[in-house]
């Protein structure tokens, strides 16, 4: 049986797995952005926090993903549900690029622009929302894009703790020494990553500030 016919045969299961995968990645990115962007702003504002915050995010990044899923398994509330566990672990991975790019983007705003905003009598909040964030949006989005692509890949490992997604096929294929099963997980995952990369890249270029 060729890969194509295999895909056609199992299209509803594959589609189901794609949806699960998208859900895992989507929820992860939502959390990572909600946590990471404010942390990035904080790091830009208080440089002495840069070491502890970026350092922690960096350490999270170095833990092998399979091990991280394992570590979180005994944690009371998390271990109870596989998707909860998976999204938590994935969020930890996604944070670093988002925090780093947000703080870099904000620190990259021309100091003369920031100072004139202050001198015009804008409040700190107005400077953040009307000047700094709009001007660093494309850099922040680049961080989100990198994190998304990364998460799509790592999310395949979430199947190891039973969180579903495209990793299911890969793990089953590995166990059964079935290449077609592995490809049924790997190809859609790769395609998802490419689509996310292109789509977010396009958005990023459209939001790039004119200078």
């Amino acid at each position, binding site marked *: 049986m060729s890969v194509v016919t295999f895909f056609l045969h199992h299209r509803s299961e594959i589609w189901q797995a794609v949806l699960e995968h998208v859900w895992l990645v989507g929820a992860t990115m939502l959390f990572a952005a909600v946590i990471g962007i404010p942390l990035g702003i904080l790091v830009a504002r208080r440089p002495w926090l840069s070491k502890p915050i970026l350092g922690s995010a960096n350490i999270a990044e170095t833990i092998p993903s399979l091990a991280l899923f394992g570590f979180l398994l005994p944690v009371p509330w998390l271990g109870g549900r596989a998707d909860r566990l998976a999204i938590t672990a994935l969020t930890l991975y996604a944070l670093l690029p988002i925090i780093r790019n947000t703080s870099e983007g904000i620190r990259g705003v*021309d100091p*003369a*622009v*920031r*100072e*004139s*905003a*202050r*001198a*015009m*009598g*804008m*409040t700190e909040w*107005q400077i953040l929302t009307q*000047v700094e964030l*709009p*001007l660093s949006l494309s850099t922040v989005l680049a961080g989100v894009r990198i994190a998304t692509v990364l998460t799509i890949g790592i999310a395949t490992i979430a199947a190891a703790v039973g969180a579903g997604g495209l990793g299911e096929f890969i793990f089953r294929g590995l166990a059964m020494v079935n290449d077609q099963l592995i490809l049924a997980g790997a190809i859609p995952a790769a395609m998802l990553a490419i689509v996310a990369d292109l789509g977010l890249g396009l958005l990023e270029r459209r939001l790039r*500030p*004119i*200078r």
Partner: protein
Amino acid sequence: MRDQPNREAVIEFLHATFELPGRPALLRDVTLSVQRGDTLVLLGRSGAGKTTALKLINRLLETTHGDVCVEGRSTKQWDPIVLRRHIGYVVQEVGLFPHFTIEQNIALVPRLERWPDDRIRARVRELLLLVGLEPEKFIQRHPHQLSGGQRQRVGVARALAADPPILLMDEPFGALDPLTRGELQEEFQALQRRLGKTIVIVTHDVGEALLLGTRIGLVEAGELAGVYTPKDFLRSQQAVAAAYVAQFRAYEQLEGGA
């Protein structure tokens, strides 16, 4: 002129000192006052403390000793936001918002002050005409589409937008080529007579100081070396003032001889 009774000190430095911990003071014990309608030029070398003095007025910096008062009240007692919207600010780098159109840039303070839209639009047109830019041509453009001189004009328009009684300018024409600078200085001089604002300008260009200042404050190594009328400045025996004047004369002679 200084005997006129209706004139009042709009800006006052009272033994104003600004220092960062562990470093020599950037500004030491400066006392001076600027009367309503006056243009004070702070003249001095780079790093002399002129910009520091300027930033003390709109509280981008705060004195570490002494005080700076605006309209009779210490800047520390002003709400900094209210104070800054009361004072226009123009800097060499202009600091226009690159993601805003010219209209949005000029309209910044009126918008923060929640003026009605039609009043803002009318004001932007009025200001563009005032600084010599055609409204139709410029309102929809972005700062990067303008020349340096045009950007500086927009910077002046933005600072004047909410009609602040005080204007601070830090090397406003410093980054321009000599021809454009000369044009803008002359136009600004005419504008200044029309608007009657109280203005403080920071510059290291003695020609600019003599052209635009009603008074010249000489700043040297963090201290105020003296305050002069342009006439007095030209005759001053003070060493630094005399050096500036000598340099200016040499330049003028060169021009006269050409």
